[in-house]
């Protein structure tokens, strides 16, 4: 396993938001993380990627402890994330956002650097071809991000995360707020990313059709703990998952 998180626990005052959570992810695998609102899914992701400092637990990534590292240190280790709500960044274009991701990786290569001297043409061409085109963003590469509709802003945020060339990608509700057509397009993009870059993907999501069709394995959280983990088909038939999250049929 490339990522092995165990016993991750974080408390906010008296509230135990994540309680003894464990999750694994292997390269080339898409792991879905589902559960009711307030189950601690996003909080768990925030613990892994350095936004929160958990009270207990370990998260080993290729033998290195991730918990407690800052997001920019994590990016250099190949751990990137996307956000549930996309910040509207004034004046920055889609290409600028992608360049921010490329910069976060901290590559010293001169052709890639957004330094004071030298042209960025090579970097721009590379980002456009390898990231923006597959994400259907090539035609809006030079458009300010805040003028774009929500779905495209989310795609731009994904492009930023991918520009850091991550080996572990954490997606926080990549499909939320998109139309169902956009959602299916985004799901196809995520599978394409996994196929092309071979990264491990952990995906927090509510839309069950997307989760079922995209994920190789699904973990279900409720009240801060994992209540089930298994293949997509098994999730839907598990009585406990039906009770706390999916609801009984009929």
């Amino acid at each position, binding site marked *: 396993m490339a990522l092995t998180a165990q016993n991750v626990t974080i408390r906010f005052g008296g509230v135990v938001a994540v309680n003894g959570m464990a999750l694994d992810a292997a390269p080339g695998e898409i792991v879905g993380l589902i559960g009711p609102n307030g189950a601690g899914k996003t909080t768990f992701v925030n613990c892994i990627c350095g936004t929160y400092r958990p009270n207990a637990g370990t998260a080993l990534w290729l033998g290195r402890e991730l918990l407690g590292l800052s997001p920019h240190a994590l990016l250099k280790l190949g751990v990137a994330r996307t956000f549930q709500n996309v910040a509207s960044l004034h004046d920055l274009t889609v290409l600028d956002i992608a360049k921010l991701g490329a910069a976060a990786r901290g590559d010293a290569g001169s052709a890639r650097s957004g330094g004071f001297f030298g042209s960025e043409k090579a970097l721009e061409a590379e980002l456009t071809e390898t990231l923006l085109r597959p994400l259907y963003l090539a*035609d809006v590469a030079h458009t300010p991000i805040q003028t774009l*509709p929500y779905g495209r802003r989310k795609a731009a945020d994904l492009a930023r995360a991918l520009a850091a060339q991550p080996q572990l990608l954490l997606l926080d509700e990549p499909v939320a707020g998109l139309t169902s057509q956009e959602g299916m397009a985004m799901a196809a993009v995520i599978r394409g990313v996994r196929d092309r870059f071979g990264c491990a993907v952990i995906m927090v999501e509510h839309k069950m059709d997307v989760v079922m069709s995209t994920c190789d394995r699904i973990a279900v959280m409720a009240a801060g703990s994992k209540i089930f983990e298994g293949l997509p088909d098994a999730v839907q038939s598990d009585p406990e998952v039906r009770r706390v999250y999916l609801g009984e049929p009929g």
Partner: protein
Amino acid sequence: MGTRRLLLALAVAAVLIALSLLLGRFGAYLVRAVAIAGIGALSLNLLIGYCGQISFAQGALLGVGAYVAGNLGNAGVDGVLALLGAGVATAAIGALIGLPALRLRGLYFAIATLAAQAILEYLFKMLEPFTGGVSGLVIRQPAFFGVPVASDQVSAAVSVLVLLIAWLALTRLTRTNLGRAFLVVRESEVVAKGMGIDVARTKAWAFAISGFVAGIAGGLIGFAARLASPEAFTLDLSADYIAMIIVGGLGSWAGPLVGAAFVVLLPEAIQRVGEAFDIANLLSALRELAFGLLIILFLIFEPRGLSSLLPRLRWAQPRRRGAAPSLGEPGGAAVATKGGERP
């Protein structure tokens, strides 16, 4: 930067330099005052308009530049090296002032810069061997590359040249990784952190670079006035510079220049009007009031600043492109979205 913009900047600078060499002393004085204020406003615009760190210490930083350049010049250092030395020293002081920004945000940090302004003003008066105390430091006529700057016309041309270099360097800076990081830090430090931007390092660079440019502007002020005194670098001056970037338009690069011209020339214009109608005494009493009133009117009617008027004046300019199509389906036509927030 586009070649067209570069050529435009060069052309404007060439015209201004030629003009300032041809102008009378008063004209040259005005060009120099606007150019130097423009450099200082560019520096503050980097900090406030681009990186979102409000600072009231710009006046004192200009003072640091004036004292350092003045002392170096008086010691026989060439004007160019003296200006660079002033830049480096002021960058260090600027970074020091920026330290509280690692802990404080927004208005709380702005208050900390007020304290920095007060402390520096106090030091200007107290460090007599270096600053000449309350009476100030008399600065000898500078020489650039060994050529003495004898006339106001030449010093105006030098100021315009430095302004051009500062403008080119700062507009270029915003096209780098660091420049993009400034913008993200301005919008949200939480987002910047999540994107993997080292917020502390980014802010430190903003303070240092802004301080460097402010130091050079301050050095030019000192060389122009031949005097650096504590009264010249008070909080009033900081307020003037904040007014410049607000009147001009925060976060644009034409804005600080337009704002600098406005803030420097407006009192002169009011003076002229007063003389023309023989009400100079009345108007000079009302000058500060009229100035304040105009700034308030700007904030009400043109909050994006004077520079936002420029594109509207160009009637040939096409309208901004409509909303771009949404995330496309694979191989299919683009689908429409409401583009709304998540439910």
